[in-house]
């Protein structure tokens, strides 16, 4: 059996399309996962909070969370009050109402004035949201034993009510009380649940694992059927039954390995970024698992979750293997599994838990795949009058499904005589009409090399990444934005007048404070109260000082203008807007371009194409033009989306203003405008993309092997950026990162940037030269 298993592994290793699908889906799911983590609250907030909790004894953690929550809720209200007080007369009633609703707010006023910087996230609003979530979790943990007690009391009350007197109802009530009775001695540790919960509840992981397992099962069976080897294998002594068993084992092993790697990777990522907490704590220490009646620690729970996932996916794999064995057509097997899923999704979503068809809701693949839900839900279901927990029902069905599915597979394999496939003779009546070399090369790239699919996938990922993102601006930022929106453009007399008026306003506030301090008739308490009210109005002064600083700079440098700098600084200087898109772009380019040249070598079409008049330079020129277009599309997708997003939030105005209008860009030559910066940024990014692409093409003609090219390109292009993305900063200067973040390096280290540009151009020229030499290489 072992040699058969080994050969099944070897066959899978050789299925390039499967390997590519695997890499692509794993990368996509990891990307979506990392994006979804930071969409609302950054991971660093959880890490900081987790570290703080660890420094406290268990019994003080709840109190600490409560205090932090109250403090930041008050800060939020004070923030609101500050904005309302910019127009105090108009908003007087709202201010009063807010103060009446939140009498404790005054206690935090002094603290707010002295320091109201966000502690966990980048904004006060996020901090308040985050602490609200944490407080909810901790409250649930705090009240856990009360919850157990309530269940016991409820059980006693219900058993006395006449409508629950039936034997079945009595049984269920007693059972619930008994299940939770044993949990009264569970130790509850106050810690965050988010990292672990996210690892197992992220739906895209399940979706991608399902696609991977279906593809795996498809390839395992269809490999032999496509080649007509299935009939041949059956004639051999071992092929009669052992082959299909070996295929089961390989499917199970590969599923287990992939599943384990995916979840281990995600757990590792979360552990690295925010910590997983004490793994020996009870499962009930995760607030959302208070309903779980199982006595186990978090470590055991992780094992159970992964184990369940493997079993469910294996069941799905076996269903697909059955379909692939039974059906005579490749496409039909996919259509059948799709129909199966549509029915399952429909049943899961549409059937009400109390309807007569409720069993179809729970004995359902979608329900099975949501392992985290059925482990944290305490529910008894009557299966033909027999009360069973959801958890036990699922285990039973999955194991029974695996056994019956395997037996059915073996029976089909043994009994079926003809395994030949009926080709799908789809006649493409409206076959794409291609009539030029250019259109053929374009068709090969988009359709055959699946670049079209990659473009659609990229657009979806970008949409998914940005449509949830919201940018919060604190009161100071909002005031500053409103100032700058009024002032933007060249300095005029009106603007000078407005600045002077504003200065007078703040000066008068200071004079008022001075007067209050000098007033001997006021009590110190009254003085404090009056001063605090004025101080709230003075919050805008810090921001106004920035405006004044710009004003003074513009007076000295007439070519400068008032510019709202935040969108420019975000786009050109913040790595959060450039690193992830660059990483995505590199993955996109590697996967789009690794086949551009190799497709002919792989298919051996080069043997006929190269001895044609247009099959040499012309075809290579077209391939390079195609690469340039793909780079353009990739850059538009990955850099265009953040640009559009930032424009919609802040607005890129004053494109014609000199770069020295923005304080951080003052070291750049004043002749450059902000519009020029976009051009320079785009051009340098294009140069590095082109240089890397040329290098990739050179690897292609050297290696003449698709998977080698893909592997080398991923190592060279993606891994350095991936490491930088994960804060391993030592790679920044030695990789091509400076060119992807060129404006920042223009300011901080222009020499390094110039050297990199020179090297890139040289690499591009040499690589292209080599490509032209090697592509027609005569041995």
């Amino acid at each position, binding site marked *: 059996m072992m040699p058969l298993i080994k050969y099944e592994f070897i066959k899978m290793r050789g299925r390039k399309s499967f390997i590519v699908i695997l890499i692509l889906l794993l990368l996509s799911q990891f990307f979506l996962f990392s994006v979804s983590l930071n969409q609302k609250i950054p991971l660093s907030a959880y890490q900081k909070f987790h570290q703080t909790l660890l420094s406290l004894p268990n019994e003080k953690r709840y109190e600490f969370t409560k205090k932090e929550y109250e403090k930041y809720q008050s800060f939020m209200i004070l923030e609101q009050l500050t904005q309302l007080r910019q127009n105090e007369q108009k908003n007087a009633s709202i201010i009063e109402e807010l103060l009446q609703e939140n009498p404790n707010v005054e206690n935090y006023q002094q603290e707010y004035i002295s320091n109201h910087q966000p502690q966990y996230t980048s904004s006060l609003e996020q901090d308040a949201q985050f602490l609200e979530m944490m407080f909810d979790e901790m409250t649930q943990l705090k009240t856990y034993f009360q919850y157990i007690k309530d269940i016991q009391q409820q059980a006693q009350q219900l058993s006395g009510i006449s409508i629950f007197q039936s034997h079945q109802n009595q049984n269920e009530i007693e059972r619930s009380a008994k299940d939770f009775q044993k949990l009264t001695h569970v130790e509850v540790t106050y810690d965050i649940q988010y990292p672990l919960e996210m690892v197992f509840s992220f739906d895209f992981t399940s979706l991608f694992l399902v696609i991977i397992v279906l593809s795996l099962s498809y390839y395992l069976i269809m490999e032999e059927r496509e080649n007509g080897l299935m009939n041949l294998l059956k004639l051999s002594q071992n092929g009669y039954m052992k082959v299909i068993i070996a295929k089961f084992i390989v499917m199970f092993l590969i599923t287990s390995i992939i599943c384990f790697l995916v979840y281990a990777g995600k757990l590792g990522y979360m552990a690295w970024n925010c910590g997983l907490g004490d793994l020996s704590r009870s499962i009930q220490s995760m607030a959302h698992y208070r309903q779980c009646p199982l006595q186990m620690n978090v470590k055991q729970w992780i094992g159970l979750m992964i184990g369940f996932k493997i079993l469910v996916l294996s069941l799905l794999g076996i269903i697909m293997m059955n379909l692939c064995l039974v059906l005579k057509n490749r496409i039909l097997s996919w259509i059948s599994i799709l129909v199966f899923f549509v029915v399952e999704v429909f049943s899961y979503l549409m059937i009400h838990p109390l309807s007569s068809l409720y069993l179809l809701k729970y004995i359902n693949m979608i329900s099975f795949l949501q392992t985290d839900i059925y482990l944290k839900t305490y529910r008894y279901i009557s299966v033909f009058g027999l009360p069973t927990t959801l958890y036990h029902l699922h285990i039973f069905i999955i194991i029974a499904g695996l056994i019956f599915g395997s037996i059915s597979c073996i029976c089909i394999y043994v009994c079926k005589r003809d395994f030949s496939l009926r*080709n*799908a*003779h789809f*006649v*493409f*009546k409206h*076959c*794409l009409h*291609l*009539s*030029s*070399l250019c259109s*053929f090369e374009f*068709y*090969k790239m988009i*359709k*055959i090399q699946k670049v079209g699919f990659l473009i659609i996938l990229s657009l979806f990922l970008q949409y998914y990444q940005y449509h949830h993102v919201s940018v919060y601006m604190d009161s100071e930022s909002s005031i500053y934005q409103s100032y700058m929106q009024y002032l933007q453009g060249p300095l005029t007399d009106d603007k000078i007048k407005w600045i002077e008026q504003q200065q007078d306003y703040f000066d008068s506030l200071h004079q008022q404070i001075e007067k209050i301090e000098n007033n001997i008739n006021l009590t110190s308490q009254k003085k404090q109260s009056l001063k605090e009210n004025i101080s709230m109005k003075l919050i805008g002064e810090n921001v106004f000082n920035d405006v004044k600083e710009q004003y003074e700079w513009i007076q000295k440098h007439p070519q400068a203008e008032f510019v709202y700098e935040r969108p420019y600084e975000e786009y050109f200087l913040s790595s959060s807007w450039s690193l992830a898109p660059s990483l995505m772009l590199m993955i996109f380019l590697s996967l789009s371009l690794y086949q551009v040249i190799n*497709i002919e070598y792989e*298919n*051996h*079409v*080069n*043997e*006929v*194409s*190269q*001895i*044609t*008049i*247009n*099959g*040499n*330079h012309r*075809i290579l020129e077209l391939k390079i033009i195609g690469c340039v277009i793909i780079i353009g599309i990739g850059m538009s997708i990955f850099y265009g989306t953040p640009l559009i997003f930032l424009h919609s939030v802040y607005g890129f105005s004053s494109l014609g203003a000199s770069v020295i209008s923005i304080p951080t860009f003052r070291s750049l030559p004043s002749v450059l405008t902000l519009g020029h910066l976009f051009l320079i940024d785009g051009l340098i990014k294009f140069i590095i993309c082109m240089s890397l692409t040329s290098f990739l093409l050179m690897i292609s003609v050297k290696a003449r092997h698709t998977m080698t090219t893909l592997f080398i390109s991923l190592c060279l292009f993606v891994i350095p950026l991936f490491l930088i993305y994960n804060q391993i900063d030592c790679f920044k200067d030695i990789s091509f990162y400076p060119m992807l973040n060129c404006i920042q390096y223009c300011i901080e280290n222009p020499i390094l940037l110039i050297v990199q540009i020179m090297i890139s151009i040289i690499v591009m020229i040499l690589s292209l030269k080599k490509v032209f030499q090697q592509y027609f290489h*005569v*041995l």
Partner: protein
Amino acid sequence: MLEMKNVYKNYGTYQVLKHVDLCLDEGIYALLGPNGSGKSTLMKLICRQLKPTKGQILWKHKKIDDWGQHYFLDIGYAPQQQGLYEDMTGLQFLTYMALLKGIEKKKLKNEVNRVAQLVNMDKFLKQKCKTYSGGMKQRILVAQALLNNPSLLLLDEPTTGLDPKERVSLRNVLSHLSNDHIVFIATHVVSDVENLAKEIVFLKDGIIVGKGKKEDLLKQFQVHCLEDVYLKIFGDDI
């Protein structure tokens, strides 16, 4: 006219072809030899996919390298390896090859249909190449070699995978071309070429061990059929 003068080809220290002298003018020529005798290497040398280690190959009395890209206008080649774009239809593949061969756009459709009809593939052109059987793939490859009506047609094992009917059909097509084309067929199936070839060349371990018309070879080896000549030459290897 194609001439090969004292051609040698080495892969490292291994000599694949030794002292090959050949002169081909209009007509069908067969290159017979067992697997590994150097037939495909010889074909690739003529196609300029390989470079001879020593010796010269002349086309119309001029070195083939000196013709530049124009040399490719004169040749059609069907390799032994069945290399096609699996996701393209037969029509797309032939159109693509026609474009690569520099055929004008207005003539594309007629030319593709002409060669497809010659190899009896006109009914299957709208199917994807991956759905073709081995014989159909082989016919498509021969069809692409026939595109643009090349003066020199090089066919490496063209009958592989073809059924008897298709073999006869291909032979008829090739016999029609024999008047004004040079057709050079590499094969190890004697029956495919014995009544077709103007001259037959036997290649053994990279050396030409016999060449001439069928009748002359039968006389020379004192046998009744070409297969016996083959057995006499390669008998030790079988």
